[in-house]
């Protein structure tokens, strides 16, 4: 039977078999879209021909809030951007506000605490990314192992600032509360505990043949495409570009620590595939651990917040743009102050927003199962994409 082709998809073989395209709506409520991300896929059978991303299902008006509440209150809303790396968000926003002041010195102790918290938070965030990535691929147990270790970091944070998530801890001028010796001891304990655990994830996932076959050569992100889309963080480093603001444009006191920057090598497949992005995260956890160990070893005594910022926060008129290397990439804040206690405009440069915008470019021709693998490997947080 020679049925005429109504529409000829690119991937369909030119035979008499009639093939129809289908529109598949994935999300906003789907187990592996990591929140409320929605992607409409045009499929030919299991093959993804084209896809269109839709975001905004978690638009929480962050930038409007920053123009409506005081600078100190805005810190609270930055928590909820990338809710897995709240410490990094707080740090970036606080630094952007501090940059508005002409000569502001942040106490050494506060800088150390900031680095420790940001790096511990990076480990926690990567743990969740790795765990949920395993779940996307179909392995459920690594997820629970990651959560087991993540709980240890959360309990440290809980003792430091009283919250398990959304810490509101790093604030303009320093940090909210000081840390004491028991907390430092807990962090040291964690460092000793975590190092061998990383091997466990490698055994369960990284060296698993099925996992490698599911992720290697899938969703290859070439370097030039990554640059064109402004991809940053582990997703960029997975493509082989060694760019990390902690080393390249050191902020806070990152220039004092020794650590490596893992990049993708295409060890199991092509450079820039899902496996490379995943492995960069696994290796970054160990590098973060190194930073934490060094920072804990040399933490000085002294005040934990700047005396210059006493009272109501009222930065001078001006504009500032500050970026930090967050666990998902470069998080930037463009802050405009007109001398009041409320910002005139705050713009958040969210890494996930850039990273997910290229999904339709790297997912063409893959299978539906790969689509899930690619979304997982980009490791998005919708709170940050939608803001």
């Amino acid at each position, binding site marked *: 039977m020679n049925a005429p082709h109504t529409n000829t998809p690119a991937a369909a073989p030119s035979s008499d078999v009639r093939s129809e395209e289908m529109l598949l709506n994935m999300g906003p409520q789907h187990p592996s879209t990591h929140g409320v991300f929605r992607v409409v896929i045009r499929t030919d059978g299991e093959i993804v021909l084209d896809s269109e991303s839709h975001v905004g299902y978690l638009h929480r008006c962050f930038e409007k809030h920053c123009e409506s509440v005081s600078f100190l209150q805005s810190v609270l809303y930055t928590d909820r951007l990338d809710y897995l790396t709240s410490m990094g968000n707080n740090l970036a926003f606080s630094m952007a506000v501090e940059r508005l002041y002409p000569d502001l010195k942040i106490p050494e102790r506060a800088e150390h605490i900031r680095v420790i918290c940001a790096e511990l938070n990076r480990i926690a965030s990567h743990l969740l990314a790795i765990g949920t990535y395993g779940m996307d691929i*179909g392995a459920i147990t690594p997820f629970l192992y990651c959560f087991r270790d993540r709980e240890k970091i959360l309990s440290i944070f809980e003792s430091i600032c009283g919250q398990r998530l959304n810490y509101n801890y790093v604030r303009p001028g320093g940090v909210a509360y000081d840390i004491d010796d028991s907390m430092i001891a807990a962090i040291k304990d964690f460092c000793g505990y975590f190092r*061998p655990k990383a091997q466990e994830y490698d055994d369960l996932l990284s060296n698993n043949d099925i996992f490698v076959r599911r992720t290697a050569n899938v969703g290859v992100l070439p370097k030039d495409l990554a640059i064109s889309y402004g991809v940053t963080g582990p997703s960029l480093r997975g493509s082989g570009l060694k760019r990390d603001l902690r080393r390249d444009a050191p902020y806070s006191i990152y220039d004092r620590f020794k650590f490596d920057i893992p990049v993708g090598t295409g060890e199991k497949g092509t450079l820039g595939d899902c496996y490379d992005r995943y492995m960069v995260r696994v290796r970054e956890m160990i590098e973060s651990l190194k930073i934490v160990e060094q920072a804990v070893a040399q933490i000085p005594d002294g005040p934990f917040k700047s005396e210059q910022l006493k009272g109501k926060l009222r930065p001078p008129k001006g504009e500032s743009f500050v970026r930090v290397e967050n666990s998902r990439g470069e998080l930037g804040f463009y802050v405009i102050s007109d001398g009041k206690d409320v910002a005139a405009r705050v713009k958040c440069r969210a890494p996930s927003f850039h990273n997910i915008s290229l999904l339709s470019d790297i997912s063409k021709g893959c299978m539906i*199962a790969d689509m899930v693998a690619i979304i997982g490997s980009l490791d998005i947080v919708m709170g940050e994409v939608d803001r």
Partner: protein
Amino acid sequence: MTTPYTLVDWVLGDGAGWLARFIGAILVWAVPITGFVSFVGLLSIWLERKISAHIQCRLGPMEVGPHGALQTVADGVKLLAKEDIIPADADRILFAFAPMLAFAGTIVGFAVVPFGPGLIVADLDIGLFYLAAVGSLEAIGVIAAGWASNNKWSLFGSVRAATQVVSYEIPMGLAFVTIAALAGTLSMVGIVEQQQGWIANWFLFRNPFTWVAFIIYYIAALAECKRAPFDLPEAESELVSGFHTEYSGMRFAIFFLAEYAQMYVVSAVAAVLFLGGWYTGIAPLDAAIGGGTAGMVVGAGVIVTKSFLLVCVQMWLRWTLPRIRLDQMMYLCLKVLMPFGMLTLVGSTVWEHFLPSPAIVKDGGGWTGNTVMTGVVVAAIGTVALVAYVRSVIRATPSLRAASNS
């Protein structure tokens, strides 16, 4: 081959008419089998949750009954009392029929699975062939469910199930043929009886090729049960819930039950074909137990234990391995397992021709020819296990790991 002593005969006594035997078979078999299937399902689901929990450093169900023993009962009754939804655009008849088809496809498999000496519903001469035929019936139910739901995710799930059936059936059939060629019969009871005696007589240890056939069969069986890493039709992270996305309440529970009953069937078949069925593998022990009622009870215990051990291995695999992709599943079944299956069939028959196993001695002999083979296999497994253990110890100990790396 006729069954010398079956449960129906035991209940009715010898010399009952065919009608009495027919009605007796329904009463004696259909009712207990249905009960057994439900029990197996409930027990497996509870086991699954406890095993998965303990793999994942959790406890699993604890509050409903002692150690959550009543958890699956509660789940079942709750699902029974849930609202039964049939989507407006679904094919109503097919939608309602599909779970029953899947469940029936599973339960008819129990007809030829022996539970012990004489404890078999029907010892068909073509038992193995029948099993291969009805084994794919469940997939028809799954395909029908996905089609009838009028949901794109369900459709993907059902088409994946169809793809999976045509892929795993072939290597599974080849594994069946390998054993059938050795046993010279398709009757399940006949196959078990050839494995009488010492553990060396089990088909698993008959020659190196049956060992491969066992692995092929077990992988194909995982695919038949839609268990990870072959849980493509319901792949939760990809297809929401796959073919049963639109099913709620009791209809979903029936699918669930069918899946777990299927797990038991394939495991019991593996026990029958490769692991000596109801024989303990210790010849004097089998001889001491003898036949009759005691043999039936002990035999049933042995075969159910073996089957449940294999079910637990399925669970262990599920909670350890990621899911493979559709094309990889087809590649594995059609381009890896199938050639190996053919090789196994040829190799096994050639081996038997040139190195025939000594005649099976029913009174507990046979501790001769296969002993070498058994010894080699056991030694190999032992070595692998030892190496893996030492490696894990080295890895878990930082100082040792540093020493081994340098």
